[in-house]
């Protein structure tokens, strides 16, 4: 690594840490109904939305109604996106005359975008027209991210309120997240990206003659707007198949920095919002620190793996699958951030990462997408681990474990276990299935442990709602489209429902006042405990599979064998 690389990494994290309290504080104002700067700009739109939909913005509901509203809303979105793909030829804004999508691909894509996964079994520019991209996918990019925030808000209210069953209003939370957070930030980011050369048009694909005289079709389209939200909303679904490695998506080093920052910005800032809403910014920073430590640990291992010499290539830099415009450091910084944050956009091909860097990317997802994680989703996933940590370690201080004054009892533990169990169930069982049957194995591009890693990565990505892939896997098949689709659904709602149940149950509890006998959750000891529990639970669950994938591949590579 050069000094320049190190400066870039430091710059990136300084910006992230610096912006966290700024945006976090702004979101706190938005979500608690305080006055804020965007109110004069979009306030009329919020009122109009409520009048149009008949929502009473102050009508708070219990966890069941909140969850029911959320599920109905997401189901509607799924059905809509599913149908417009099947009927694409009849729809406008399809200048390339792309045909209707197969039902299983449409199912997979519809699930993928409603669950904030943005796994793309299809190739963007050769499958979906502008109408589906904009009205279907871009809209889902907004609302799926807002859904994550809404769940988080309900959970925070469950933790910070006492002896009530009211958790807020799903529709209000959804509307405010979109109007005041996602929309303004996306507009801002789109403008910046367009200034860097990202395309934003409705032109048909252009056919040009290359210098060699061959003809080439250059895809066009409204890319900047979709890229802005795919980064900010931890969606990750690129406008083009090569995602942010494509020069029209990510043209300059500056656009690269800004897009990377956009991946982590909202999840990171939400930790500050969390602290403010539970009444102690220290609590928010504690959660941030745990996430940050895990992120840095993964980054260091990946960078080490990429920069250390591959005996086969001697000391040549490993540029396979990377954009020369960005180089190793920026590719790894992106790959670590995008997998940690459940984003899934890429600026380098994860399939070509060195085995250990690939393992870190995979493990970031397997740990439950809690290292910043998806918008809202990362933090509510982290609270699940906090509950488990508090329960195990809290007993050791000799009291019934409690978090922020709320006792952690059988119900919370049960729901937390379900939320941890479901994604792991998806990863392990589907990977096992795919690695023993022909439809699973036939999609592999590579043999040996790397082929296995491709399968494992795909289901981890689905279960964690990440969306990135070891692209060696040809996943646009009936088997993969359906199983991955189911995996994404389970990974999303198999966590949201238990989290909402926890929120509802905790809201009804009293708050035990702080004393010297309280197990503190805002100090270094707790942060290291939390990190330890995440690593131990995730590590113990996946160690056997990882050892048969990237670990053995790494050992073999050092012995001079690759796949």
């Amino acid at each position, binding site marked *: 690594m050069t000094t320049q690389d190190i400066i870039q990494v430091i710059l990136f994290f300084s910006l992230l840490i610096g912006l966290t309290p700024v945006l976090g504080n702004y979101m706190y104002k938005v979500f608690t109904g305080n006055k804020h700067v965007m109110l004069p700009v979009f306030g009329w739109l919020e009122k109009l939305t409520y009048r149009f939909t008949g929502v009473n913005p102050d009508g708070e509901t219990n966890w069941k109604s909140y969850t029911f509203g959320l599920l109905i809303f997401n189901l509607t979105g799924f059905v809509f996106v599913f149908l417009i793909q099947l009927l694409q030829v009849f729809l406008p804004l399809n200048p390339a005359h792309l045909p209707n999508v197969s039902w299983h691909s449409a199912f997979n894509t519809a699930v993928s975008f409603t669950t904030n996964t943005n796994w793309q079994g299809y190739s963007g520019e050769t499958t979906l027209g502008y109408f589906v991209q904009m009205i279907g996918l871009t809209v889902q990019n907004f609302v799926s991210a807002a859904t994550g925030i809404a769940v988080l808000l309900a959970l925070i209210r469950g933790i910070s309120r006492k002896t009530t069953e009211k958790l807020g209003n799903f529709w209000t939370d959804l509307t405010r997240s979109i109007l005041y957070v996602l929309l303004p930030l996306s507009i801002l980011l789109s403008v910046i990206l367009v200034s860097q050369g990202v395309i934003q048009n409705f032109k048909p694909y252009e056919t040009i003659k290359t210098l060699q005289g061959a003809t080439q079709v250059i895809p066009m389209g409204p890319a900047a707007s979709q890229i802005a939200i795919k980064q900010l909303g931890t969606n990750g679904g690129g406008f083009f198949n090569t995602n942010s490695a494509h020069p029209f998506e990510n043209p300059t080093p500056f656009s690269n920095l800004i897009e990377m920052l956009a991946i982590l910005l909202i999840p990171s800032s939400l930790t500050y919002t969390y602290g403010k809403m539970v009444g102690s910014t220290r609590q928010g920073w504690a959660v941030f620190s745990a996430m940050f430590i895990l992120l840095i640990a993964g980054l260091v291992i990946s960078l080490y793996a990429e920069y250390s010499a591959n005996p086969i290539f001697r000391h040549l830099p490993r540029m396979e699958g990377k954009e020369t415009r960005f180089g190793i450091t920026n590719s790894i910084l992106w790959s670590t951030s995008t997998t940690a944050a459940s984003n899934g956009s890429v600026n380098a091909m994860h399939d070509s990462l060195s085995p250990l860097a690939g393992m870190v990317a995979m493990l970031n997802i397997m740990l439950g997408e809690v290292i910043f994680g998806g918008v809202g989703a990362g933090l509510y996933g982290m609270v699940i681990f906090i509950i*488990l940590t508090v*329960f*195990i*370690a*809290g*007993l*050791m*201080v*000799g*009291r*019934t474990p409690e978090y922020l004054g709320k006792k*952690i*009892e*059988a119900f*919370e*533990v*049960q729901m937390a*276990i*379900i939320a*941890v*169990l479901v994604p*792991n*169930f998806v990863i*392990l*069982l589907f*990977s*096992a299935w795919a*690695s*023993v049957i022909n439809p699973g194995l036939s999609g592999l591009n590579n*043999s*040996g*442990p790397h*082929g*296995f890693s491709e399968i494992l990565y795909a289901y981890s990505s689905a279960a964690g709602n990440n969306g990135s892939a070891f692209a060696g896997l040809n996943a646009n098949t009936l088997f993969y489209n359906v199983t991955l689709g189911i995996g994404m659904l389970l990974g999303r709602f198999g966590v949201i429902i238990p989290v909402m149940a926890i929120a509802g149950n905790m809201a009804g509890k*009293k*708050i*035990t*006042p702080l*004393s*010297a*006998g*309280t*197990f503190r959750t805002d100090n270094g*000891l707790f942060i290291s405990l939390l990190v330890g529990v995440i690593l*131990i*639970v995730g590590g*113990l*669950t*996946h*160690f*056997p*599979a990882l*050892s*048969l994938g990237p*670990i*053995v591949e790494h*050992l*073999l590579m050092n*012995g001079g*064998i690759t796949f």
Partner: protein
Amino acid sequence: MSSKQNTSIFNRKILFKAAIDSVIKLNPALLIKNPVIFIVAIGSLLTTIMVLAGIFQGNFSPFNLQIAVWLWFTVLFANFSEAIAEGRGKAQADSLRKNRTQTKALKLVGKQQVPVWANDLKKGDIVICETGDIIPSDGEVIEGIASVDESAITGESAPVIRESGGDRSAVTGGTKVISDRIIIRITSEPGNTFIDRMIALVEGAKRQKTPNEIALSILLSGLSMIFLLTVVTLPAFFGYSLSASGFPGSHNLTIPVLIALLVCLIPTTIGGLLSAIGISGMDRLLQRNVIATSGRAIEAAGDVDVLLLDKTGTITLGNRMATDFIPAEGVTVEELADAAQISSLSDETPEGRSIVVLAKEKFNIRGRDVHHLNASFIPFSAQSRMSGVDIRDSDGKVHQIRKGSSDAIRTFVQNNNGFYPQNIKDIVSGLSRQGATPLVVAEDNKVLGVVHLKDIVKGGIKQRFAELRKMGIKTVMITGDNTLTAAAIAAEAGVDDFMAEAKPEDKLRRIREEQANGHLVGMIGDGTNDAPALAQADIGIAMNSGTQAAREAGNMVDLDSNPTKLIEVVKVGKQLLMTRGALTTFSIANDVAKYFAIIPAIALSLYSGKNGVGPLSALNVMHLGSPQSAIMSAVIFNAIIIILLVPLALKGVRYRPVSAKSALTRNLLVFGVGGILAPFIGIKLIDLIINL
């Protein structure tokens, strides 16, 4: 009860019984209550069947047999830990049962006395007990007073007084009247008496899982499910890797090896010891002569963060002591001391006695015989609120010496046409402010001075409150004294807060307020008027000497009737929770080493070249002898760690009154870091022994 003689963990009789019980507990209906161990049992059974099938097919596998044997031992060891904890309770129950002999009772039917069997007595029946009778059942004295030998339940040989009315009216079935005669109304149905319930509790017969135990069981079951997933999917991953390395699929992992891996990963250590920890918590309370009506109560004791403590008896010694004589103007201190002593010579109250002692110590005024002085004693009465003596001097004139409260003496002096001086008033209010009780002494119409009576705060109580504060527990002193007095004593004792001039209903209100603010409240009480507060408190400890109503209302009974017991109870509760947390952490941390033993062992040949040693052998950081010995060592370690930790489960982790943070740091180091390291050493040692 014999609980004071600490039942040794390794009593041979208990050990033997526990060994037999651990086999009886293989009954699936009992095993299923413990999901983690139930999984191990199913695994053991499967492995055994495979061994037997192998024998019939002519390819007997000694390796599988060894795995089967050690898996069964894992189940047996877990059963054993529970059995030994129960055994200790049973030993105590047996000693209780000895005292519950078949007794006859005299039942009052109208005016007739009918002899009946104690077992036939119903709630509400009236019986008569005389000297030498065993009290047939729990009840309340409705007439008379008697001394009762309660050693059968308390182990205390000194008899106690039981009388109708007041706060000492409850009697317990199985105790013995040693003097006088009392009439008792039976207050419990047959089979549900105090002793019956004690027996049931210590035997663990009615033991239900406590809330925290349920939550922990869910966590353990959840972890087991996750590891089950990890293990059942492994053959698929392994099969892929086999074919990728060019081996036939028939080389895939065998079921016994998978079961061994599963058993090593699921939290068998804490799963096996969980119920032993719970039972021993009850047991440890019993050793302190406290009986909890449920395990839930013990857990709640660990959570209590506000303690309501009665001043008298808990914070101060029951009685006030004279510490000083302050004479009125024109009176020498000796004169005052002499008069005070004379007035107290026949006063048998502790206060009176302390005055006699103080006069003797300070001025060497010796006690004199009252009759010799021609004096007659005037006892304290509620009307006069004074006591003293009338002395007839040589002239035949009667001198009245009185001591009493300031108000009473003023009335007395003024009635004798005397004058109540201002400086006495000043002294009295000064003493009150310091938290003392002033006792004014007068002779006829002249005030002699004031005796300074002081509440004596118990030795060491201040340190205990400081310890409680460190643990995050707030102490509130409850007293009937006025605010001034209460504040002074509160400051001296170091309590966090006090309630002065408190009436029983104030206690109840205070508890509700604290609970509304999220606190868990513990209190100790004895009287009938304490019953509502005892019932409202999260931990209500009734003194055994108290009324039946109080004993019914509380969720614990202190057989020693010692008010400071509350502090002990809190410790036991905290220790119980700590032990669970510590062993859970230990159990999970253990898994790291087991992976490093088993994964390289099973994956040794994968992607191997000609030498048969694949790259994953690099994970064999312990350098275990062979793949088979590695798996065996992990399984054996997993089994014997349960037995090794039984004493810890029964005794509880070491408990010190420190803040949550230092307790956590210490336990994390010992059980978290220790839990990661210990199996590396243990498995390596076992492997060395196997490969000898």
